């Protein structure tokens, strides 16, 4: 396809037949080079346009409207909304005023939720990946079953968990109260303090298969010779796991812990499907908190300011995390 040069004659090619043949060889080369230069950009163009429309432009637009006083009244004519300066930001960070206080509370809830969920998901994923490393009967089946929570649509799984956490009819109270007699009465799981723990359990259930999947892939890259050498030196299975498997998984761990952290911190589905638009105070994750102040209270300016703050926080966390973990790694390698 690249060989089909335009039929137009090159200006520098003379009228004589000999020169024109030389020009004919020269031109495709120039066209080739031009296409070579432009082609990668052309290939990327559709993807770039889509990303621009859905991600990049809205991001900058979001920063813009965070400085506006954009309420329901201005939704259809956003540009007529009055400027608010830093008012939206000030309201969000004033921790002694209702808005700031609620945001800070939501932030702490989200942080505890995220740290617990990521730690547990990582732990389960690592345990499962290591225990399924060697071949045994039923290994393939167990691996497939472990991936089911990952494959299920989030809302279907979340609805099922909501059913299990019902006070009268749920499985959790049936087991805890009726069968094990751990609790003296059937507790409420979807309101009050319990709602936080219910949410953590569900989050771990949904997230750990991803850690498992990524770690399984990571385990395949550890050369078998390492284990053989360790076995020759008399290292037992536990020692091999500690001395070979865990250090080799460091790069994979670095990525999955960060990815899980960001996903869980931004989690919207879990509280939204479990509790609806008004989650209990103890389960007020930041995404749904912002959603509420934007789409329920119809204050887009304030919601955008909170989103920008959230983004800044995540950027700082990511940068610090990458800095710290990468430095630790290079020191270890020496």
């Amino acid at each position: 396809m690249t060989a089909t040069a335009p039929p137009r004659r090159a200006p520098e090619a003379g009228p004589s037949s000999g020169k024109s043949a030389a020009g004919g060889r020269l031109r495709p080369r120039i066209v080739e080079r031009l296409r070579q230069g432009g082609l990668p950009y052309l290939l990327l163009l559709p993807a770039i346009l889509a990303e621009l429309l859905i991600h990049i432009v809205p991001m900058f637009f979001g920063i813009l409207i965070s400085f506006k006083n954009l309420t329901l009244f201005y939704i259809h004519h956003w540009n007529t909304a009055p400027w608010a300066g830093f008012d939206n930001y000030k309201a969000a960070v004033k921790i002694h005023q209702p808005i700031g206080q609620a945001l800070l509370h939501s932030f702490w809830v989200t942080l505890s939720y995220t740290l617990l969920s990521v730690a547990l998901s990582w732990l389960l994923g690592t345990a499962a990946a290591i225990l399924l490393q060697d071949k045994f009967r039923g290994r393939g089946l167990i691996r497939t079953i472990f991936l089911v929570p990952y494959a299920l649509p989030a809302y279907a799984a979340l609805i099922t968990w909501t059913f299990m956490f019902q006070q009268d009819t749920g499985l959790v109270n049936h087991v805890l109260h009726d069968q094990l007699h751990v609790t003296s009465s059937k507790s409420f799981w979807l309101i009050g303090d319990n709602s936080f723990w219910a949410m953590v359990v569900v989050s771990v259930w949904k997230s750990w298969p991803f850690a498992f999947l990524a770690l399984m892939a990571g385990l395949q890259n550890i050369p078998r010779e390492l284990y053989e050498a360790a076995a020759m030196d008399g290292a037992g299975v536990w020692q091999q796991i500690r001395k070979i498997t865990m250090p080799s998984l460091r790069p994979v761990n670095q990525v999955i812990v960060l990815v899980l952290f960001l996903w869980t911190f931004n989690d919207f589905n879990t509280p939204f499907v479990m509790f609806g638009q008004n989650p209990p105070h103890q389960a007020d994750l930041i995404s749904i908190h912002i959603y509420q102040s934007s789409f329920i209270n119809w204050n887009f300016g304030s919601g955008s300011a909170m989103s920008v703050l959230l983004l800044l926080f995540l950027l700082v966390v990511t940068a610090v995390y990458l800095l710290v973990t990468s430095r630790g790694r290079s020191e270890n390698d020496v």
Partner: protein
Amino acid sequence: MSRFTDQPSPMAQPKSFLWTRRVVLTLLLAFVLVPVYVMLSSSLKSLQDVQGSFKWIPHSLTFKPYIDIWKTIPLAHYFVNSVIVCVSATVFSVVLAIFAAYGVSRYRFMGRKVFTVTVLSTQMFPGILFLLPLYLIFVNIGNSTGITLNGSRLGLIITYLTFSLPFSIWMLAGYFDSIPRDLDEAAKVDGCGALGALFRVVVPAAVPGIVAVSVYAFMTAWGEVLFASVMTNESTRTLAVGLREYATQNDVYWNQVMAASIVVSIPVVAGFLLLQRYLVAGLTAGAVK
């Protein structure tokens, strides 16, 4: 890549390891399977059964919930909406990803690194950050041009395709990297252009990666709740939002909710488990780099 995992362990495992393995894996299996069992068994119970205290073994089995789910809410309509939106988003996302991944994998050009990093980082940004401005942009585009994006399937398709795009590009670029360049050079010598080489040589060789990316894109779109809850209306509502309607009535028909959950899960779970091998291989190729 050494596939040592398919060979027996280099040394006999001690009892402590075998017991740990048995206990931990059993507990994990229970943790994973209990909700699945609840879903399945409750979907076969009568309404009376699910309204009483939970029972592990159903009193009697009935398929009635599977018939009723289509009448209680317009489930079929939501199903069609979801299929249209998710299939279109998947097709567009994969095609765009193939082009972009080919560019990233086969060419060295200015801005290559910036592109990869920017695109990948958008994946990590909070969805809520885009939701508000995107909603406003869609509303205002509708006002000024008459192209309805808010509340329409088109708007949702465009949005969803970008959700899976970054990861798809990254995964496919990794996959394309593992296909020898000599192959496309040979195709170019044979008279194919760059695009000819892409479609005649690279794409056929990357089928497992493309399948993996398609499954991933479809799953991402099928399970999305946040944007669907804001950007759809009654006629364009997808399953992710529609399923909540069983629960907003005074009486929650839990047996129907469970039956509907199973029905909407079947396409993705079946697809995922059937193509699991490709997906794991595709993920691995991406992770190995």
